[in-house]
């Protein structure tokens, strides 16, 4: 599993005025990992992810993503990663195919490659017949899967998922994570934030953020052993409450 780290963060910090959103976090993510980033709302998950995806600049510390420096090479990072946000990101007034064409287009896929990948993707999603339907008409579960499929259209080696399953029912969430595991099995890396603790079990390794710091990091079984807890929910509650005392 180990190789050159896909993500390497060292003392990465981001302040907004006097508020320290992310406080000197250091960690590595390796190729082929499904790395979970847990934390309460406002713990700094999204800020950390935004720094790593080249959206905002860190205040201090260093980080590299796919070998690119987050300060100087954010353009290269943006070109190489995939991203799916917690809020729904497909255009409802466009058809499935038009969404695919648009997102493929902004990653620079030419029309031939795009047509090929779209066919393949729609076949896998079993949406071939619906390709010219408006996204609006699709059930939420399908949309979520479609959003992920669109996010990996340009075959990024690293995908960031920002709370990808927010507001989705458990069955669809399960299907969704199976999709993600499939993509990881192809040798790609996925970095996902979530606050569904049951989802943490899908991750090969995870970290828990509390108040901008990394409170714990390890595989689910390692963490259970280390903290003497039964599941991630308990671990999370322990870590989160201890910060108030």
């Amino acid at each position, binding site marked *: 599993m180990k190789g050159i780290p896909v993500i390497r963060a060292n003392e990465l910090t981001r302040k907004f005025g006097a508020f320290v959103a992310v406080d000197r976090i250091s960690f590595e993510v390796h190729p082929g990992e499904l790395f979970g980033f847990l934390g309460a709302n406002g713990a700094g998950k999204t800020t950390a992810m935004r720094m790593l995806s080249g959206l*905002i600049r860190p205040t201090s510390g260093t980080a590299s993503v796919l070998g690119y420096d987050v300060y100087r090479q954010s353009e290269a990072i943006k*070109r190489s990663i995939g991203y799916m946000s917690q*809020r729904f*990101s497909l*255009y409802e007034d466009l058809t499935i195919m038009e969404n695919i064409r*648009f997102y493929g*287009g*902004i*990653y*620079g896929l030419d029309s031939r490659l795009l047509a090929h990948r779209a066919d393949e993707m729609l076949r896998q999603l079993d949406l071939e017949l619906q390709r010219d339907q408006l996204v609006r008409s699709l059930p939420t579960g399908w949309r979520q899967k479609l959003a992920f499929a669109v996010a990996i259209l340009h075959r990024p080696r690293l995908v960031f998922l920002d709370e990808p399953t927010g507001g989705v029912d458990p069955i669809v969430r399960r299907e969704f994570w199976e999709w993600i595991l499939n993509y990881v099995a192809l040798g790609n890396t996925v970095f996902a934030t979530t606050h569904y603790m049951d989802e943490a079990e899908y991750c090969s390794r995870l970290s828990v953020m509390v108040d901008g710091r990394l409170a714990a990091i390890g595989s689910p079984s390692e963490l259970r052993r280390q903290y003497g807890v039964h599941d991630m929910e308990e671990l999370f509650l322990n870590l989160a409450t201890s910060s108030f005392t």
Partner: protein
Amino acid sequence: MPTKLARIAFGAFIQKEWKHIFRDRKTILILFGMPLVQILIFGFALSNEVKHARIAVFDQSNDSFSQELVKRLDASRHFDVVARLNHPSEVQEAFQAGEIRLVVVIPPGFENALHAFHRAPLQLLADGSDPNLGTTVVHYAASIVAASQEDLLGQQSLPYGFETELRMMFNPQLEAAYNFVPGVMAMILLLICAMMTSVAIVREKENGNMEVLLVSPVKPLWIILAKTIPYLVLSTANICSILLLSYFVLDVPVRGSVPLLIGGSLIFTVTALSLGMFVSSIAHTQTVAMFGTLVGLFLPSLMFSDFMFPVDNMPEPLRLISYILPSRWYFYIVKSVMIKGLGLAGIWKELLILSGMTLVLLLVSIRKFDNRLAL
């Protein structure tokens, strides 16, 4: 981003914007229906031009000259001669009945006086209870009288004619369309470019698409450009359709140079687009963006651009507001070029002010946008 990729990305973006615009019936309606409706409403319903005002004539002279004059008044589309009065006391009654807008009193010996003394008094009595209407009908009547005098006396005319000479330069018939067509152009461009663009950009934010776009390799500036270019194109089409409509349907002339007019309009389009960008960098919801542009931009422009209310009559602070409104300068430019036929020499100052404002707005908006995205 390498150029080929950038081209593909930009193309995909513009295509998507077109689809958004053409798939939404409301958008289409606003884009293409509004200019048409505004021009037609202003042209035929809301005009402050007076048509077929009922007037009375008290002709005490009844000679060929006075008869010709009355005939001409009646023939004008502004007036219908509905009563002939025979006694001075009837004048008061005619007004009190409320049906008559104007009474033309022709004294006895009208024609003789004109030939003998080279001057003939004529009385125009208007209902002053509606001052605007009163002034307007007096002006109309005076201009018809002046025209008849010229025709009737011709070149053999005399050193002195009627006592007053009223003349509305550039718009002798006081066509209301001459004023509102430039005004409607300014308002339409503001609405389409500022409102539609800001709403379109904020929609991306509201639906959470903006974040995904920003993580993509497309640079923020390109995102904004791609969002605005379709509206720029549509506005240009709208300028042309407004001009064609007003030329063919409302008979408004374009006396100056058409390229100059279009050029000025393009500058103002960019102004409005930058205003839209500016609003979108502040607003977080489409509703805020819409009301922000309506209340913050559209209303002041409507009131202080000299289009509906004369700015010269306003108190100093309000006049200052009008100076900082780009639409005021644009309105002046359009009016000068279209109606007065001025060339570049006549409007370069206003054009310069407008361009300066546009440049500042554009820079501020782009900067503000970049800052927002840098979070």
